[in-house]
């Protein structure tokens, strides 16, 4: 056994240093652990300050002892490389470990152990933990706003069918995949718009399901006998035509009783709210802002000076002002600009305002993609005799859009995070509903639970979106 210099751990005395170091580290760890989980102060006999910093000092010495390069023990080397490279890093690592240990018990007790889940009144919330009963009782309001309870199936049905419609791309055969762009750009938004807006707001029957189903089944059956070349146009035209013929010419009201809807109750947009409104607004703004943004991005790169100046003006204007003032404008200033008896619903106004606002950002993102394409692409397309539109649709835009997927995803993420701002025009989505609920005299004092709940929901949505965009980026990565 060689001589031990405790200021200089070396390989020769590996075992001694390893045991001593691990022991010291373990002591410091246990001290903090017992302190935070069992409220036991092992070093309580020491003066206050010393007992406070003792685990840090012990842990630091322990980590110092085990910092031996090329020890030959794989785990130890990994540990040294990752959290124990030098004194400074060792202290930081220790601090982080202690902070994590210290913060687990209070968080756990607030979220789960001391929290109350059961019951449906405020009386059960007597503990020090969170009152999830509050969330449970108000759940419907947080999800649907003031939308009447009996009609909420309409919102659910709309979203479920939209998801089903949207997933067409996933399950379509390769033969139909080439039509998907058209579907997603033209047909799907139209259906979605009809579905969400008219179905959720109600009013007279806009769509007789029974006729619709018969028309769909008939057209699918006939569709088998249509030659492949015409199938696309066939499915574009015939189902709608069949529906119209069935409804207005062949059948009359008295012939068909099968599952016919009586007409839905009108629910005005002021009653919409909660998380579903967040989705509705994000969805429409997403649909609208993309084409507008694309148009202005092309306009900004256009060869016509007047069109370019107008586009630059538009983009810079919307990018220069905060969204809240845009919404203010849509609420108080915009009605002044319309003819007197012309009324636009405030939800529609908010959607228009947010769409225009986000379109400017989308335009800048797409412009970045257009600029990043090498000139050769433009020249090659032109040399093939393509005109402006052909060149952009078939050569430039597909590549440029692929390049800017992450940027567009970030813009959409910002859009989702901006939706709570519609409180300015008096619409209450989930954050607005929380603020309303916390002022309810029966449920005072539960602001924390509400905000934590909304934060978790938003975090999940946004995190999932950002991960999805990252995956898309990886998938479409092509070298130019």
């Amino acid at each position: 056994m060689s001589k031990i210099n405790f200021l200089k751990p070396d390989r020769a005395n590996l075992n001694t240093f390893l045991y001593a170091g691990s022991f010291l580290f373990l002591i410091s760890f246990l001290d903090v652990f017992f302190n935070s989980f069992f409220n036991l102060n092992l070093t309580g006999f020491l003066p206050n300050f010393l007992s406070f910093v003792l685990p840090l000092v012990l842990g630091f010495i322990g980590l110092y002892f085990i910092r031996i390069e090329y020890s030959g023990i794989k785990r130890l080397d990994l540990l040294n490389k990752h959290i124990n490279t030098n004194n400074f890093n060792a202290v930081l690592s220790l601090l982080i470990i202690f902070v994590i240990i210290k913060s687990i018990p209070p968080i756990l007790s607030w979220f789960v152990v001391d929290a109350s889940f059961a019951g449906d009144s405020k009386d059960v919330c007597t503990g020090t933990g969170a009152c999830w009963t509050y969330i449970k009782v108000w759940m419907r309001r947080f999800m649907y706003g003031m939308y009447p309870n009996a009609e909420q199936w309409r919102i659910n049905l709309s979203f479920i069918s939209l998801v089903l419609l949207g997933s067409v791309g996933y399950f379509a055969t390769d033969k139909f995949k080439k039509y998907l762009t058209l579907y997603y750009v033209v047909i799907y938004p139209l259906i979605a718009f009809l579905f969400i807006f008219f179905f959720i707001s109600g009013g007279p029957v806009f769509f007789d399901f029974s006729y619709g189903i018969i028309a769909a089944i008939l057209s699918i059956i006939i569709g088998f006998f249509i030659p492949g070349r015409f199938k696309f146009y066939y499915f574009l035209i015939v189902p709608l035509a069949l529906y119209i013929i069935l409804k207005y010419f062949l059948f009359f009201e008295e012939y068909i009783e099968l599952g016919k809807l009586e007409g839905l109750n009108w629910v005005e947009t002021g009653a919409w709210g909660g998380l579903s409104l967040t989705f509705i607004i994000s969805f429409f703004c997403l649909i609208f802002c993309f084409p507008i943004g694309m148009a202005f991005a092309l306009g900004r790169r256009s060869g016509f000076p007047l069109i370019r100046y107008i586009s630059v003006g538009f983009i810079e204007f919307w990018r220069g002002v905060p969204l809240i003032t845009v919404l203010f404008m849509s609420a108080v200033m915009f009605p002044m600009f319309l003819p007197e008896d012309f009324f636009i619903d405030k939800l529609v106004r908010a959607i228009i305002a947010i769409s225009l606002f986000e379109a400017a950002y989308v335009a800048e993102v797409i412009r970045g993609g257009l600029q990043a394409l090498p000139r050769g692409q433009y020249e090659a397309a032109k040399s093939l005799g393509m005109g402006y539109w052909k060149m952009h649709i078939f050569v430039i835009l597909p590549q440029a859009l692929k390049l800017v997927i992450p940027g567009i995803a970030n813009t959409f993420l910002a859009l989702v995070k901006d939706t709570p701002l519609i409180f300015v025009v008096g619409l209450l989505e989930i954050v607005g509903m929380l603020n309303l609920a916390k002022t309810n005299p029966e449920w005072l004092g539960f602001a924390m639970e509400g905000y934590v709940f909304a934060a978790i929901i938003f975090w999940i949505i946004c995190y999932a979106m950002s991960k999805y965009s990252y995956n898309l980026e990886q998938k479409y990565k092509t070298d130019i």
Partner: protein
Amino acid sequence: MNLKLKDIVPQLITVIAVVLIFGFFTYNAQINMENRGIDFGYGFLSQESSFDVQFSLIEYDGSHSYFRAYLVGLLNTILVSVIGIIIATILGVIVGVARLSPNYLINKFAAFYVEFFRNIPLLLQIFFWYFAALRALPLPQDAEAIFGVFFLTIKGLYVPAFIWQNFSIFFYSLVAAVIAIIVIRIHAKKVQENQGKQIPVFFISLGLIFILPLLSFLIGGVKLSFEVPVLKQLATTSFIYEGGVSLPPELIALTLSLSLYTATFIAECVRAGIQGVGKGQKEAAASIGLTPNQVLKLVIMPQALRIIIPPTTNQYLNLTKNSSLAAAIAYPDLVLVFAGTALMQTGKAIEIVSITMFTYLTLSISISILMNWYNKRIAIQEK
């Protein structure tokens, strides 16, 4: 000039469409205002505002004009933006560097911070701090002093006020120190280029910035004293602190959430910037014998800053624009004071909203012009 019809027609159509839309709007606005008996004009700015603002940097009460109210709001917006930008930059740089740390724990901790705060809407964070977290603070009478002089209570943060005598002399000494440092830097650069000698500029600057103000205390008759806030009883259950400076909870919640939120984006910019400098640069610099500090100062940072600064300025702009969310928690910023209260009182929707938008537009465009100029200056000169 060979103007072709093909070139003119699309432009003409666009311009006519834009003119028609604007004309339609102005026409309607005129008719609407006539019908409602509102007249258009900015004369109201000099009228008496007759509303109070709870927090203002300049002297203001109801007897002042609407223009003064506008200034109060603008200054409050600028105050919150400046504090937020400073905190967000410091935090963002630390987190951005931490994300590149070889230490696994620090790295993950920073990543967790970024992912956590970036994915929650800013408005929700502001509400959380204001309505939930800061409401859990103690009442003034129960508050414990931090370092004996700060009091963090439900009614805001009370900090000691500085009371200066001969403040101008102190200020001039600071200015003199800064000028001296600049002169020395220029001189040092010249000496290094001509003779190859290095002057320890950093230590000299450090000395100057301390010694000159210190001299002003010793010789110039500058005196500094603190006024510590003192608890005062108003009624049996109502207490406040008197003296010192009080920061309202709205301001604290707003700066906290703005800087925590923006710092995540700045951290990503910093990380991208440092990662954007090629590894070869570092190795090349080390191989010609520069010390690690010199490598960082002379090789890495100048190149990294070129990547970092443009997106970071964008974040500063975003922070300034996001500070308008103050209206949601009744912090008297430009939107709340002017586009809120003043609009309610005067009913001049078009004028007030346009002034507010124009103000933000001026702020953003001037910053982006400044940035473009700076970008051009630091861009690599390619020949």
